[in-house]
């Protein structure tokens, strides 16, 4: 892999127009990645699902080179109907289009010469990989007092023209004071067995609201990793919803720093897995000042041969008094081959806090099935009804009514 990384890196530099300084930084991260490789189970965060092993098993020959100088054709048929929205279209590792047609152009600024920053979690080799190989990346700034009118959908697409086995996406968002952004990640893959590495950084200033919905719904054989770094200032709110179902492997990491008083973070997630899918959500909510709040709810329905992992961490700094932290994970195991692992972790250094977590896993309640069947439903219907109700609970947590209905329809839940 090492040689492949080096030659592909050189190839990309030949056809791209990065400045010398950029190439130098990229090379620095490339070397860092070569040194450490893909994370494996020896690292605590990767204990339950070993990415190194999974990549080796499902991707025969990793390659990293894509020709980013030619454009890709946009297939408009996959666009989401029935919802007016702004778009960012990301095809085969290249951002083809950033379209804010519904918004006031003066209120949104897009930077493309934005410099790589160094502030990230240094223990994550995938971030190094991202920095070394991501093509151009953009920063989107929502100006003070502006709330975007229509949601922004980021389409993650691949097609048969893709050359490499790995693509990287990096986007930065800054929400100035009292602004808001609704963001939906939507995945549609035609190609198989690729590794997709997504890195978002959000800076949410005072009184701003971020809503991020990730929907992994169409079946594919890809391996995906997504890392959200969220920094929150006073009175800000972040809401993350993850529907994790259809890739072969999908790990979502949310690292949220509550840096301003009265800021709050919400993470809600659904795993709906079957057929050898292995998914994970890992959250790290860092309460760094007084009076902050976090709430996490993760529910899983696990079918044949599937495996779900939830690692949730609440960190409370010694000055972060009056913290309110809550975490709940529930799982239904439908088959004897399904597996659920959880590591709900509390790390607390302040005394005046209210923190709790709960985790439960088991099979569907026989009594409930019996009740429904005695009322005339057959076994399958009863089961579906119960699962529907179990998952609906999480979808109901979505605060935006329009998007809530959209997602409900997408994943086929009924009220």
């Amino acid at each position, binding site marked *: 892999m090492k040689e492949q990384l080096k030659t592909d890196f050189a190839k990309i530099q030949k056809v791209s127009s990065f400045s010398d300084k950029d190439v130098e930084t990229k090379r620095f991260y490339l070397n860092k990645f070569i040194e450490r490789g893909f994370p494996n189970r020896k690292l605590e965060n990767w204990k339950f699902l070993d990415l190194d092993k999974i990549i080796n098993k499902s991707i025969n020959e990793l390659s990293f080179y894509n020709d980013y100088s030619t454009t890709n054709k946009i297939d408009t048929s996959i666009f989401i109907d029935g919802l007016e929205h702004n778009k960012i279209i990301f095809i085969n590792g290249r951002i083809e289009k950033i379209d804010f047609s519904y918004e006031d152009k003066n209120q949104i600024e897009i930077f493309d010469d934005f410099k790589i920053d160094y502030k990230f979690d240094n223990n994550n080799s995938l971030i190094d990989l991202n920095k070394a190989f991501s093509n151009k990346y953009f920063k989107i700034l929502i100006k003070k007092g502006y709330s975007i009118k229509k949601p922004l959908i980021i389409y993650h697409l691949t097609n048969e023209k893709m050359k490499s086995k790995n693509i990287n996406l990096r986007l930065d968002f800054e929400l100035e004071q009292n602004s808001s952004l609704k963001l939906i990640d939507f995945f549609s893959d035609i190609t198989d067995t690729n590794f997709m590495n997504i890195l978002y950084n959000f800076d949410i200033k005072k009184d701003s609201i971020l809503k991020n919905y990730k929907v992994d719904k169409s079946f594919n054989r890809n391996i995906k990793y997504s890392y959200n770094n969220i920094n929150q200032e006073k009175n800000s709110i972040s809401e993350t919803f993850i529907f994790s179902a259809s890739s072969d492997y999908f790990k979502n990491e949310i690292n949220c720093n509550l840096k301003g008083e009265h800021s709050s973070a919400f993470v809600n997630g659904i795993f709906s897995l079957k057929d050898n899918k292995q998914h994970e959500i890992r959250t790290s909510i860092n309460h760094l000042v007084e009076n902050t709040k976090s709430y996490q709810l993760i529910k899983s329905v696990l079918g044949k041969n599937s495996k779900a992992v939830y690692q949730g961490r609440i960190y409370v700094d010694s000055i972060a008094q009056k913290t309110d932290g809550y975490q709940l994970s529930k799982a239904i195991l439908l088959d004897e081959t399904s597996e659920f692992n959880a590591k709900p*972790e509390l790390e607390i250094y302040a005394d005046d806090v209210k923190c709790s977590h709960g985790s439960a896993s088991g099979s569907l309640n026989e009594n409930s099935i019996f009740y429904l069947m005695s009322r005339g439903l057959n076994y399958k219907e009863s089961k579906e009804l119960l699962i529907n109700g179990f998952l609906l609970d999480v979808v109901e947590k979505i605060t935006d009514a329009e998007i809530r209905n959209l997602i409900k329809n997408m994943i086929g839940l009924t009220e």
Partner: protein
Amino acid sequence: MDTREKDIENLKDYKYGFTTDIENIRAPKGLNKDVIKFISNIKKEPKWMLDFRLKAFERFKLLKEPDWQKPKYPKIDYQDLYYYSAPKSMKDKPKSLDELDPKLLETYNKLGIPLQEQARLNGIAVDAVFDSVSVATTFKGELTKHGIIFCSMSEAIQKHPDLVKKYLGTVIPTTDHFFATLNSAVFTDGSFVYIPEGVKCPMELSTYFRINASETGQFERTLIIADKGSYVSYLEGCTAPMRDENQLHAANVELIALDDAEIKYSTVQNWYPGDENGKGGIYNFVTKRGLCKGKNSKISWTQVETGSAITWKYPSCILKGDNSIGEFYSIAITNNHQKADTGTKMIHLGKNTKSKIISKGISAGFSDMTYRGLVDINSKAKNSSNYTQCDSLLMGNKCGAHTVPYIKNKNFDSNIAHEATTSKISEEQLHYCQQRGLNPEEAVGLIVNGFCKEVLQQLPMEFAVEAQKLVGISLEGSVG
């Protein structure tokens, strides 16, 4: 020699302290084959025992010291330790209570420990009438009547080699982790208990009553076997503060419960925690593991951990037999600069196995407390269930409380429920107690005792009373 004669013989030994030739024996510093041979030799062990130790040592050489735990400690130079030294003679020990640290005496009085016992705990020769040796012998008679074997490990190796050979290292093998393997190679002594088929042990067994128990050294090895249909309750440690020359304590405790047997193991640990500034104190790195080997067997761990500078242990249950039950009740209190990383592992292998974990952590001062636990339900463990509750109480914002549970469910028939909370003592409760005439320290003691009630209830009666007082004393100076 009949038993009476033996008792007299024992008494003699005690009176004169240890015989002179043991007194001067000490293995050279360092850890190598020769030292292990030396230990084995001096204990007159059979060859299989030496082989066991050497096998463990071979493995130990390949292992690296773990460092994933939360409390960090300065590196230990394993070549700079004595792995065998004979117990101290009476000459070096304090002659009377007046020579003791007044602080220690104060604690004794608070716990309500009788004068004679205070002396005994510090190795001061006491009146033969009250001497525990005589108390112990009466107990011994009773136990022998039931066919129960309760003796030191060295004695068991000599007298019951078949049992030791059959069970030693079956729960904690010589191929285990770093500290357990070290113990397997160099352990000096410990307790051995065997309860024969169908026998309910008539009394609580305690190291306290076992002769030679006072100085088992830093590498203790305990093995308890409960044969079919038997029951035993075993107590380890005592509420009185214990001091020791050795900083590192790496004991191994193995429990084996066969069909329908039950073992209840209670620990009160109050080793020297170091001074207010965190200097000194014991490192308590103990491996405790129980195997529910037979059907319908049960193992229950209860622990009250208040001492040691660093406590790092996870008493575990391997639920192999169908319908077996594992329980873990724990109170861990850290104050000043103490650190603890403790919890349990419940490994469900058999069908219909059940486990329950109740853990209460209290941290005060500058201390740091971690609950780390594993619940693993194997794919074959049909219809199993686990319930876990771990609560933490924090006093002040200089301390930390952490919960790190690992939950693995590979069986769709099984249920796991886990709950954890972290909070502080509410001002209202404190106010209420103080209003009724308690001083702040008493009030905290009362509230904390209420917080720990579920665990304290599990302790044998005589332990429970002292443990309650101990909970209050451990938190002294943490309020106001």
